[in-house]
Structures are given as structure tokens and as C-alpha cells.
């Protein structure tokens, strides 16, 4: 099944025969059914809610984006240089990384030439496929969170104000809901009020917070926390850090020290290093990813503030150039406003109407 059809299926709710067969083997569950909504149905419903929420979060962005694509096809009916330049602008307007945009449009130019495509409509579908392909091309890091049977240590890093602390609160909540014990380390000892902010989140989600006073050594706080987590048999320890701009050598060194201190206690930790990126950030996000990756080997990205009108397209470039996948997306300031990232949903969110339209045409 082509990716394109998979996408369509995913959002049209139609099931394949294969899946219906699998369902029958679940008859046992049906027998236990007490007349309320079945577990399976519930899960499906829940799944839909997540997809729905994700789509709603992107709805506003998508609308604008969609309007642009449609306008693009309307004003440029034939495939020519003007069309590609305009397409570049559409992609750039979603903050897709500059070089990635150039790469993408070059590939489309080649494709159009090879297949002798002259009408822009015939490229619509390929644009989306190429984008997903670009995202899926460089797959050397797992897209899943690397959770351990015993202690999992997650280090959270990023520049100032992107949403590190908030995301930590939300991620902690997620694991607490799964029945795990969670501890937080107040590694931002610099910004005014940062420790209290994390404490508020700890109280909200029911997680212990290991902290020292403002101005103390963040590496020491984190060291204490890893030891405490080991001792108490905690399942997940999430370490907050102060925001730092990636061009500040001394602060990046400090981060390296924090990571080394974690390694001292457990050489396999941190099991995840999450870079938090603000979706409103433009091309600089790529520079952030590169710099933080050099110092701490990033294993995943949390893309926040997708509930706004920004699209965060730079994550396509980051995945393409560095192979770092997005693991979570932030869709608001509340405790539940966090979703697991899905590349298909994401790109679909950006291109949704476009795919629906073309597939209807194909069905006819």
C-alpha cells in the first residue's frame, strides 16, 4: 500500500480486510463486554481524539497553508520556474529549512522532467509524498522513547523560553498516568522563579522535585537527583535545565558537565536527551539542533506551541540533515496538551485538504 493510501485510510476510518480478520480473533473480549463501550472501541475513540486534537491544533496553520497551495496551483497551472519559486515560498512560509526546501524543489524539478509533467495539478500528490519521504529518509534514531525497565533518565535541553519546563510537566503527567513513578530535577538554577515553576508542575502531576537554592550548581542538583532516583527505585527521572543560547560556549560546557555527571552514576544514562524547540522559531532552530546535538547527542525533539499559527516546518530539515526525530508535540499550556508525534499526521495536517481532493478525483 502506498504511503499515500495509508494516509488516506488513516483519516477516512476505512479498514482493510486484514484488520477485520484480526478483529475477529478478539472475540473473547467481546464476550466479556458488559454493554458499555468496549475496550477496543474506547481505544479507537481515544486514538481518534488524539488525531482530532492534533488536527485541530494544526487546523489554523493548515487553513492558511492550504489556501496558499490552492492559490499556487490556480495561479501557476503549468510547471515552470515561476511555479517552483512560488512553491519554494510556500514551503519557506511553513519554516521548512532553507536547504531542505531547495533540495525538495530540485527533486521535484527532476521528477517533473523525468515524468514529463507539465500541469502543476499532477505534482500535488508528489509534493506531499516527497515531504514525508524527506522526513523518513534518515532513520538512525528510534522514534520511540527509549524506556528502561528500571530507571529511565531524560535530560531536557534548549534555548530560552521554548517550553522546556512546561513540556517536562506534561511528559511527567503522561508517565504518571501510565502508573510510573516520576521524579523531576530542578536543573534550572539560573532563571528567576524557575525552580518554583517546576515545583508547581511537580505538585500538579504528583512527582517529587529534587532541588537546591537558586544560583547553585545545576550539575550538583542533577547528580543528587540521579542518586535519589536510584535509591528510591523511581521509574522516570526528568531533568530540567536552564535555557541557553547555543552560541554561548560556557553555558554549553555546563550542559556537557551535567550530562557527564549523569553518566558518572549510570553510564547508560541519560537514556533520552530531548531538545525542546519552539514551533515559531525559524531557520535558527537548525543551528540549535546542531549545536545541542554536538554537546549532548540529542535523541529526540519536543516541538512546542503548535497550537499557534506557526508550523514548525524546520523539523523536516532537522530530521533530514541530522536524523533527529520529533518525539512529542506541545499543543497548549495545559497538562494534557502533549501528543506523541506522528510524521504522517503532521504532514497530513499541513496538506490535508490537498490529499482529500486528489484522492476523490482518483476514486472517480
Amino acid at each position, binding site marked *: 500500500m502506498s504511503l499515500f493510501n495509508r494516509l488516506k485510510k488513516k483519516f477516512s476510518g476505512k479498514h482493510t480486510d486484514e484488520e477485520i480478520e484480526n478483529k475477529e480473533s478478539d472475540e473473547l473480549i467481546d464476550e466479556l463486554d458488559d454493554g458499555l463501550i468496549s475496550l477496543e472501541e474506547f481505544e479507537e475513540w481515544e486514538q481518534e481524539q488524539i488525531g482530532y486534537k492534533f488536527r485541530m491544533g494544526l487546523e489554523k496553520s493548515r487553513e492558511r497553508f492550504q489556501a496558499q497551495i490552492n492559490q499556487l496551483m490556480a495561479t501557476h497551472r503549468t510547471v515552470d520556474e515561476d511555479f517552483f519559486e512560488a512553491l519554494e515560498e510556500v514551503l519557506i512560509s511553513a519554516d521548512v529549512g532553507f536547504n531542505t526546501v531547495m533540495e525538495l524543489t530540485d527533486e521535484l524539478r527532476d521528477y517533473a522532467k523525468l515524468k514529463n509533467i507539465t500541469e502543476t495539478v499532477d505534482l500535488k500528490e508528489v509534493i506531499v509524498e516527497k515531504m514525508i519521504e524527506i522526513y523518513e529518509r534518515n532513520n538512525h534514531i528510534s522514534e520511540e522513547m527509549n524506556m528502561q525497565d528500571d530507571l529511565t533518565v531524560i535530560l531536557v535541553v534548549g534555548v*530560552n523560553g521554548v517550553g522546556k519546563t512546561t513540556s517536562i510537566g506534561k511528559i511527567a503527567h503522561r508517565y504518571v498516568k501510565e502508573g510510573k513513578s516520576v521524579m523531576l530535577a530542578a536543573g534550572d538554577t539560573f532563571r*528567576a522563579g524557575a525552580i518554583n515553576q517546576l515545583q508547581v508542575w511537580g505538585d500538579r502531576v504528583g512527582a517529587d522535585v529534587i532541588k537546591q537554592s537558586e544560583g547553585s550548581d545545576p550539575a550538583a542538583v542533577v547528580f543528587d537527583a540521579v542518586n535519589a532516583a536510584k535509591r528510591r527505585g523511581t521509574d522516570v527521572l526528568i531533568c530540567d535545565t536552564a535555557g541557553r543560547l547555543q552560541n554561548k560556549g560556557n553555558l554549553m560546557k555546563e550542559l556537557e558537565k551535567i550530562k557527564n555527571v549523569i553518566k558518572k552514576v549510570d553510564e547508560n544514562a541519560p537514556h533520552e536527551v530531548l531538545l525542546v524547540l519552539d514551533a*515559531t522559531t525559524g*531557520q*535558527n532552530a537548525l543551528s540549535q539542533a546542531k549545536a545541542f546535538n554536538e554537546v549532548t547527542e540529542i535523541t529526540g525533539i519536543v516541538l512546542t506551541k503548535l497550537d499557534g499559527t506557526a508550523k514548525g516546518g524546520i523539523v523536516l530539515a532537522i530530521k533530514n540533515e541530522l536524523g533527529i526525530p520529533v518525539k512529542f508535540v506541545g499543543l497548549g499550556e495545559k497538562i494534557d496538551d502533549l501528543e506523541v508525534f506522528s510524521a504522517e499526521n503532521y504532514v497530513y495536517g499541513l496538506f490535508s485538504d490537498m490529499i482529500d481532493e486528489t484522492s476523490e478525483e482518483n476514486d472517480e
Partner: protein
Amino acid sequence: MAFEGLGGRLQGIMDRIKGKGKVTEQDIKEMMREVRLALLEADVNFKVVRQFIKDVSERANGVDVMKSLTPGQQVIKIVQEELTNLMGGENSKINMSQKPPTVIMMVGLQGAGKTTTAGKLALLLRKSHNKKPMLIAGDIYRPAAIDQLETIGKQLDIPVYSMGDKEKVETIVENGLKYARENHLDTVIIDTAGRLHIDEDLMNELKNVKEIAKPNEIMLVVDSMTGQDAVNVAESFNDLLDITGVTLTKLDGDTRGGAALSIRSVTEKPIKFIGVSEKMDGLEPFHPERMASRILGMGDILSIIEKAQMNVDLEDQAELEQKLKENTFTLDDFLAQMDQVKTLGPLDELIKMMPGANKIKGLDKVKMSGKEIDHVQAIIRSMTMEEREKPEKLNISRKRRIAAGSGRSLQEVNRLLKQFNEMKKMMKQFTNGKGKKKNPFSGMGLPF
């Protein structure tokens, strides 16, 4: 990946044009494509870029570029000028109220730097305007936001008015203003919660606060790393609140900051300040030309060119080139050149920032401070016109006289003469071809 910047981007085209001697419309079109890419790469909104390219192309297609000896630099100059114009003049004055208190309201997205900037502004107004500022804690949503502002207030010893997070913002602001009046605090800065520009409820809350507080200044705080979305954000806040100024934060990072241009062109409101540190003294006035250079990824090179060209018109430059070519460049010309150079800042720093400078061997060793230039000028000024034209005629007694007249040592006089000779040799290499690189600075009025 270091940013190439516009200088690097144009270098290739300039190299190609050099052989031809004439710039065609096609050449300009290609240069404009590079300008477009440079701006997009710097996060300038694509619509703003489109309009900009249209305007600049028109100007560049006019006579000045086509006839210029140095079309690449001419294009850079036009781009720089237009960019600077677009970003408006310098205006880092806070609108003050006739009758105290002056009220400033901070608004913007989450995490932009409102609270930090509120503290910085309070400090600045107390320090350089002798004001008695007070902060109002109007963010009742973000966990520990009040705590953050109170900590900043304590650090700076500036009072913070807060009523916790259970009261409505409107109430807090109303009471805060009353408190300020009663206590003769003449400047009130209202910190507000970050909010999305599409969040109608919270945007309306800001509107209410505006009605109650009647602020003299509504400062939109924007993260300088913002991408294409900057136009939407700025437009929405401006439409609803009619903002009066903008502060761009986190410019101590390595972002090119194209958002500045986007914001400016959709709101036409002045960018007043930039944030350059997390610390409380990290607030500076906004300089349009510096920002333009930064967006173009050219360091300060553009201000250098601009400054140099302020003093040297094209004719002078042509004359200079001619002199260099014919090897009739005299110490007197050198003196005049140095006057211009002196306005440009530390020379060795300048050289490093010039496009193509890394390609010239030995240039990194050039060291010349403002003081050294003064000394050299003093020596030349102690010479007669004739001596300046024909320095080879200087004998030992004349050199002694010059040393005494300028207050420098004989050694220094000798060193200058030696350097001048070497420089002339070097210039000859640059200007008469022979497979050597053409002087990339020619036309800039610099004596290298």
C-alpha cells in the same frame, strides 16, 4: 554551516562580471536572486522579501549599478540602504506621560521575554531617566510567573505590585495603578501573560487592560529567532492593541533576525530596543543599519562601505584606482585615505569582516590601531607637499626634521616610509592583473 551572507553569495557573480566590464540586466537579475535567498535564509517573511526585491530591482536597474566600477558593492549598498530605510530611523525613546505615572504595558507570545524585558526597562528608566518605576504582576496563568517578577524586583530593588493569581488581571492592574499614584511612583510597567495572537479570550483580556491602564507605551516583545510567523503575530497584536513599540529579544544568539524586517514592514511601528542578555543590563537601543547588516549576514561590513562611500564619491574612487594603477599614489593621498579610514573603527577587525579578505595572504597580519594612524598622520603632516609627492628624496636631515616636527622617533619615520613602499608594491599587484586577484576592496576608498 556558517552563514554565507550576501557578500559571499554575490562574490561569485562579481567574479564573473569582472571580466566583462559591463553589467547587464541579466546580471542584476541573478544578483537579485541571491539577495532573495539571503533574505529568506535570514527568516524575512517571504511576502516582505518579494516586495523588497521588486523595489530594489527597480533601483538597481537604474543607471547607477550598470555604470558602476564595482557593481557588486553597489548592489550591496542599495540593498543595505533600502533595508535600513524599511526598518525606520532610530527611536528608542519611551513615550512619557505629561502627568505621572507613565504606563508601559508588555505584550507578546509565551516565552518571548516580556517579564525579563519589563525588569530591564525598569532598570534602564531608573538609571538613565531618574524614574521611580514599579512593576505590576499581571501574569496570573503561568506557574510561578509572579514569583519570577518578584525575584527580579528584589534583585533590582524595584517594587512589584501583585495580588496573587486569584484576582482578575483587570483588577490587579487597576489597583496597581492606584497604588503607584498614591506612592508617587512615576513609571508603571505592566507584565502580562504570554498568549497566542489567535486566542480570542486572552486577546480581549489585553484589550480590557489597555482600556483600564491607558498605557503610553504598548511594547510588543518578540523573540528575534521567530520565523515566518512573525508577521501574523505582529499584525494581530498591532491590529487589536495599536502597539507603540517593539523589543526584539535574544539577539545575543546567532540568529540573523529577519523577523525585525517582517515586523517592521507589517506594523510600521518602531523597533525601540533589543535584548542582548539574560541579565538585567542587557537592553540596548535598536540600530537599523546594524540590524540590516546582520540580516544580510555581513557583519558590520555594510556600515563600513556606507561610511567609506559617504566620504568618497565615485569619481574620487576612479581617480584613486587610476593613481594606483599608474603608481602615482603619494603620501598625501595616503594621508587623505587615512582620514576616512579613521572613522571606520579598529582596522584589523574591519579587515577580517570583509568578503574575500581571507583569500589574501598576509592581510591577517595587518595591525593598525587608531593611535598608530594618528602617529602616521602626524609624520606625514610634518612633510612638505613636495616631500609627500616624492618620499624617495628624503635624506637623513629631512627625516630628522620630520621626526622632531611630529614628535615621533626617527625609527618610526623610517618604518612608515618602508611600509608605504611595500604597500605600493602590493597595490600594483592587485591593480595590474598579471593573473593576480584584483583588489576586492577597490572602490571602497581603503588604502590597501
